[in-house]
């Protein structure tokens, strides 16, 4: 099967651009090739899902896209900025200001309220507390949690906690959202509310990459990319096909 590069039709600087990325662990002859010649371009406001079986390289792709891991070869650009050759401090700054992560288990700080969890990201990036808090309030409102601002994680449902995590990933605007199985810990209806939140964020201009093995989750994306043995083997077209044959009659 030939490798396929999944590129959307766009002339804008992509929010994320991976070009011929390889990631190898270990040394020959026992090396493991987690990603092989992977290329992916995510346009602004585009929602891309990455599907594949366990061990196909999905999570490696996400950690490389977010600057948590360095590729063995190939280039990674976030908002046009090449992460290759960056010092640790530069990468940390990209992770703080340009990228937002959402994990399966939410990863909220239990001692902080919802608004404090979200505002903390901006405070770490140097924004004043009042300014950060105001931005956090607005972002929590945008994910439908205006009435949960002062609740602590333990007092929130799983779906609400994940929406706080999404607000934290998006606060301040302009950040690429990277999510690893974001609905994996949620029941189907709650998971759908989280996906609706992600979909709305992308419709409002956020770019997102979600890795998942869940087809119902992937179906919310603009484009689905398939990984197999570290290679991108296939992708859907970035448009929704017309609804035909819905009725069996």
């Amino acid at each position, binding site marked *: 099967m030939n490798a396929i590069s999944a590129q959307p039709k766009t002339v804008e600087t992509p929010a994320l651009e991976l070009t011929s990325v390889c990631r190898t662990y270990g040394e020959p002859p026992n090396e493991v090739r987690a990603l092989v010649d992977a290329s992916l371009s995510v346009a602004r406001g585009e929602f891309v899902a990455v599907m594949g079986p366990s061990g196909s390289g999905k999570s490696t792709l996400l950690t490389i896209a977010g600057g948590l891991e360095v590729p063995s070869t190939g280039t990674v650009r976030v908002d046009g900025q090449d992460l290759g050759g960056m010092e640790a401090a530069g990468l940390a700054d990209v992770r703080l200001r340009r990228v937002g992560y959402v994990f399966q288990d939410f990863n909220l700080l239990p001692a902080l309220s919802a608004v404090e969890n979200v505002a903390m990201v901006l405070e770490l990036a140097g924004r004043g507390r009042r300014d950060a808090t105001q931005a956090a309030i607005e972002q929590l409102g945008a994910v439908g949690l205006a009435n949960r601002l002062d609740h602590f994680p333990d007092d929130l449902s799983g779906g609400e906690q994940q929406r706080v995590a999404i607000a934290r990933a998006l606060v301040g605007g302009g950040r690429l959202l990277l999510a690893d199985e974001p609905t994996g810990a949620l029941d189907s209806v709650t998971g759908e509310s989280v996906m609706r939140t992600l979909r709305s964020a992308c419709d409002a201009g956020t770019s997102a990459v979600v890795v998942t093995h869940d087809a*119902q989750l992937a*179906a919310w994306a603009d484009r689905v990319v*398939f990984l*197999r043995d570290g290679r991108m083997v*296939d992708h*859907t077209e970035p448009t929704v*096909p017309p*609804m035909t044959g819905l009725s069996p009659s």
Partner: protein
Amino acid sequence: MYGQQLKSEFESRTGSFWPLNVGQVYTSLDRLERDGFVESPGADVDAKTRPYVITAAGQVELDFWLKDAAPPKAPPRDDLVMKVMIAVSIDPEGSVEIVQSQRRQLIERMRTLTHVKATPAADTPLLLMCDAELFRLEASIRWLDTVDARVRAGVSLLGAPDETSVAPEEIAVEEQR
């Protein structure tokens, strides 16, 4: 309720997935009236102009029908399953591309349905029908994932049946019990 009304109610409550032939509705109403499950004044008037009302016996029958599980059926003839099984039997390694092609098309159909769910006009019946179809498509994708895993594990689907294998007709018989 009139026959035409009944047709509209059925369609709106089931997401308009199964349009009814109004003639079939009148035929069914005739049978229900014969069996005492509905009644209608003026039996000599044309069925199209007569209102029907459910009887107490009809209500009991309706409650039973709603709660009763659908009768078991033999596994349906499924083109996807047939194509993939034939592909695997011809060339297990080459079947990977066919499995992926099927998976992509199923996901594309799921995206279309999800797009329908995301529209503000989607009411509860439409959401429920889309959910039903999405779960059905997801089940097919999970089956394809399992085919993929079994082919990767080198399990031959051409081997002679062992003592633990069950013939399809046995499955159907078991389900009919």
